[in-house]
């Protein structure tokens, strides 16, 4: 600790160089924390999935529907406690660019099974009572300025729903209450969409609540057996697997973001390591004098390494805080099929941790260089 003053003094020796290094580490940590937040955003659906919910869809693919009678059959399967269903609506709000998810749901059972969609009792009642009512996520409401009582008109996207526009009234704005829930979607009454569709009585997918998460595989198999060899064969999986398939749609995001993050770290190591090496070279004479005065080479090592660590940590804190302040939905609204992105405290902590690693690695070679300096040679050398 007693050497902290000395370390700080050396860092102040070239203020500009220190500032540039701190800033470049800050930028790296900013990028790293933001990339982690992007990844978290994509995985939010998977993280938020419940182990007690299983999803049944047509075996062909999600784009094929099933008769509504499947609901009763699923409910009567042993181990199933509750069932609801939903449909993809695929409507267009004013312009095809304004893409957001709209689901036609069986409202009572759906809200019962998804308690993480938080609505006030008044909003909930108003939504259940209004056949053309809808609820929207707080993220969606913020992006489009939707308020309770607003009218939303959607043009039909999927030919099955006819050609006439659908009018909705916003009856509630649901919040996620901190849970990783998609808050950029719109939900409305399945009946409203069904009564105007050309093929009636169809559900896109069923969600069932099961009594025991350990039995998910058995219950799923039992459900699929009921519809085997019918024209509407099903494939039932855990909600987690169902959500993962959406993340997988984008391709290998983990690999892409991972390689970018690696490049960020390497770039910063080059920059920070270079700076440290330069400053050691500049101080060759000084270090030789310190060694002559009796400083151990281990102390010199720690001094130089400590300087690197300090600069990197300073940059890390700046970068992580910047990311935390800037990268959130209020500053960067995402939309459409890109989930909401927000840097959380975990991302901040990982970012600062990363800066420490950068500092240590970048300081290693210059510190070793300094500690191994031969006093006689160094004193003889003219800088």
């Amino acid at each position: 600790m007693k050497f902290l003053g000395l370390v700080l003094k050396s860092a102040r020796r070239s203020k500009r160089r220190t500032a540039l290094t701190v800033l470049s580490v800050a930028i790296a940590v900013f990028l790293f924390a933001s990339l982690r937040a992007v990844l978290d955003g994509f995985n939010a659906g998977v993280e938020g999935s419940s182990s007690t919910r299983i999803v049944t869809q047509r075996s062909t693919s999600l784009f094929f529907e099933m008769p509504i009678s499947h609901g009763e059959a699923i409910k009567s399967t042993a181990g199933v406690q509750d069932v609801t269903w939903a449909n993809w609506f695929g409507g267009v709000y004013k312009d095809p660019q304004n893409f957001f998810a709209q689901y036609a749901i069986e409202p009572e059972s759906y809200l019962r099974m998804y308690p993480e969609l938080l609505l006030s009792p008044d909003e909930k009642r108003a939504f259940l009572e209004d056949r053309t009512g809808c609820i929207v996520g707080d993220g969606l409401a913020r992006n489009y300025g939707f308020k309770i009582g607003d009218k939303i008109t959607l043009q039909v996207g999927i030919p099955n729903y006819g050609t006439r526009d659908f009018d909705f009234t916003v009856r509630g704005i649901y919040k996620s209450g901190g849970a990783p829930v998609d808050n950029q979607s719109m939900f409305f009454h399945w009946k409203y969409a069904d009564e105007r569709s050309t093929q009636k009585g169809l559900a896109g997918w069923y969600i069932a609540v099961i009594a025991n998460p350990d039995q998910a595989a058995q219950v799923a198999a039992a459900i699929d057996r009921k519809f085997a060899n019918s024209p509407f064969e099903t494939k039932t999986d855990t909600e987690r697997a169902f959500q993962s398939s959406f993340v997988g749609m984008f391709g290998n995001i983990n690999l892409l973001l991972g390689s970018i993050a690696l490049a960020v770290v390497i770039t910063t190591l080059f920059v920070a390591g270079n700076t440290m090496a330069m400053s050691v070279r500049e101080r060759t004479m000084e270090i030789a004098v310190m060694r002559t005065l009796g400083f151990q080479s281990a102390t010199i090592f720690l001094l130089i390494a400590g300087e690197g660590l300090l600069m990197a940590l300073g940059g890390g804190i700046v970068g992580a805080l910047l990311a935390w302040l800037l990268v959130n939905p209020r500053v960067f609204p995402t939309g459409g099929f890109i989930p909401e992105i927000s840097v959380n405290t975990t991302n901040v902590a990982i970012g600062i941790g990363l800066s420490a690693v950068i500092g240590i690695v970048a300081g290693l070679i210059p510190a070793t260089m300094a500690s191994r300096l031969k006093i006689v040679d160094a004193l003889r050398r003219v800088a």
Partner: protein
Amino acid sequence: MGLIASYNLRSMVVRKWTAAMTAGGIAMVVAVFVMTLAIAQGFRSTLVASGSPQNAIVLRKGANAESLSGVARADVPLIESLPQVARTADGRPLASPELVVAIALPRLTDNQPANVQVRGVGSRAFEIRDTLKVVEGRRFTPGSREINVGRLAVNRFKGLTLGSDVKFGSTTWKVVGIFTADDASFESEIWGDIDLMAPAFQRGGYQSITVKLVDPTTFDSFKAAVEGDPRLYLQPQRERDYYFAQSVAMTTLIRVFGSFVTLILAIGAVFGAMNTMYAAVAYRTREIGTLRALGFSRSRIVTAFIAESTMLAIAGGVIGCALALPVHGLSTGTTNFSSFSEVAFKFRITPLLLVEGLAFAALMGAAGGLLPALRAARIPVARALREI
């Protein structure tokens, strides 16, 4: 100029480690830049390659994707009889009524289900898309439950090899041929007879009609003829325009994301270059003084240092391009959100992209060298010479 240039070059050699680290930082930025744009480029060219200038695709008015369109069976003969539609030697129209549906199949890599596009096509579809080549087996026989699978789909999904039975749409289909399509999105698809596909998927009508025109220039009169017919609520587009539009959302997303990340990363690398150049100027104060005393002007000194920094950055850029090059041709896949099915594509690094990467590197070098160069030029000659 020769003296200054060789002076800069030799100075770089003297400080080889510092120079290498700086160039290394810039190399990483350029590598990220080139790789992300290679994804955008690859996705776009895969979709654009699907369109032929001589073809037109007819969709329902207002529909911007096949999956959202609908074409009645009765519309097909009306389109086929138009004089702008090319014909085979025996006089049959080159038009293919089509239907696309997405089916879920497990990927080879992770066994996760992903959506594959199945396309029901008319019997002359292979004559209309003339880039399609059956490379293994044969074409499907109309009227039988046979399918042809694109090469990229075979390599990406389980159970699509020649001779396998694939179960979808409540029946079983036999793979009788594998085709290539110059990497176009068709190569990620499964093709079969539309007259069997439509009932298998419980679809009454078609979604689109693709026609080969007599000549690309007849498109306007073809469009006028279709739109002028009161019986048809349809709209033709050039096939190439249609597929280009399909690629816009994804390409823009990747480009914006890639530029955002590389721009921020570039600022970090520029800071690194600035550090290096400031140090270079400080070490060489006396040399700069000598040069000035010999009669080199301030502007020569400024350009010399900016040139040195730019050269260093371009060297980094070359390394970055070399680092990125191996991904060229690697195949990957993502979902085309207009069809909600997976399209395989290859990273594509074009010469232009490499030039852009080098230009970007040069820009970083110039930006990093500017302030240190100005500082170098401002050093008073007398003081510089006195410095040890």
